[in-house]
């Protein structure tokens, strides 16, 4: 995101690349924000991970589905709190949402690893 716009949700029904079609069983996770400004346009710290849907509990899978379906109430952002960008592949294309730390299942939060670029 070169313009630094990191807030809100987006449904990106972009064309799905063939190799990404093979990843429909996985979620891509990126941790953003925090005191250090993770993942910002000028940031050298990134925090990314992946989760296999099969490794999630039924409750966590449902929680993720509810996030994408906007059935979960989104609390207002808190200063310096992390938020998470979650991307999934569907038959319709790529979908990406962003959610504050409080409502992201721990299994997703724990999947990311912090690295310097």
């Amino acid at each position, binding site marked *: 995101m070169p313009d630094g716009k990191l*807030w809100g949700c987006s449904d990106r029904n972009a064309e799905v690349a063939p190799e990404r079609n093979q990843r429909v069983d996985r979620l891509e996770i990126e941790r953003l924000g925090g005191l250090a400004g993770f993942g910002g346009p000028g*940031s050298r710290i990134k925090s990314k991970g992946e989760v296999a849907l099969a490794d999630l509990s039924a*409750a*966590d899978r449902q*929680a993720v589905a509810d996030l994408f379906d906007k059935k*979960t109430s989104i609390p207002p952002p808190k*200063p310096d709190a992390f938020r998470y960008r979650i991307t999934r592949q569907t038959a319709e294309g790529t979908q990406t949402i962003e959610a504050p730390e409080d409502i992201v*299942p721990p299994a997703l939060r724990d999947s990311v690893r912090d690295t310097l670029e």
Partner: protein
Amino acid sequence: MCTCFIVPRDILTKLAQDPLLPPEIRKAAADTARIAHEIRLLRIQALRLTSVASMLETPVSALAAAPAVTVYDCKHTQTLPGTPLGSPEGTEDDSARRTYEETTKVAKFYKDVFGRNSIDNGGMTMMSSIHYGNRFNNAMWNGSQMLYGDGDNSIFIDFTKGNDVIGHELTHGVTQHSLQLEYRDDAGGLNESLSDCFGSMFRQWEKNQDSASADWLIGSDIMGPTARGRNITCLRDMADPAGAHCLAAQPTQYSQVTPGMDPHYSSGPPNLAFCTACKTLGGKSWEKIGQVWYRSLTGFGPSPEMKMPDFANRTRQVASQMFGGTPAVGGAVDAGWKAVGL
């Protein structure tokens, strides 16, 4: 009052309704969901009370002449607030002792320099939780307390080692009880910048540094060996927001700020404006320019969606009112904002 829950309420509700789970588990989930919901309502109500109380002409009576400072140990969990520490000032836990001492000093800084009695100006207890999470690379203000991670000892070390970090987090509380800036767009960038300004001022005040000798770095004391090995010496640099030595470089001009930006990115221009104003005037940051920023933050009631140009104009107005006999103050404030295109 904790606003963070390990298990989201929607999941608790589903668990409570899952016929495959034992009755006692379903009951526990239902009870927890109910409590979580009520606490969320309580938090919303508390924010409304904060807003109304701050608009009263007569301030609410002080809880205490000076705030109590409490420290809790999360013991590497994310359960808040954690176990209370009876005597954090006398413990062998360096994080606990440091958190107690530095939080107490922040209270003294706000009292002695700005005449403010704690976060809410009413003697509110300053509550901190340490050892939050497992190698947690963050610190934050959650609406009612501070929490600090230990860092991963690679990119970051213990977040309590940054006195500017502690000042930064507590200032988020001050902002919540004064301007009440939202955490998005211009207001979000201002919110972050005010925490950096007062966090840096606190650090300079502790060292009795003037603006010329201060380094103006944010988070330089929490950078770990891996970050330092790559010549990353700070989170942000208020004097050089775009510097390559910053973990998260920022824009330097207001024209680069657009809606939707992360507040930690868009805080660059107001950070540079404050630093430039302080350096232009000279002397100690908290004596004049800091007073202008503090009055602009606390003297006008809530303004949740305030834009950066409005805050800039307010500081110009306040500088004129407070230091009309010393036009160099107003000139320095003006130079600061002009340096970022405002």
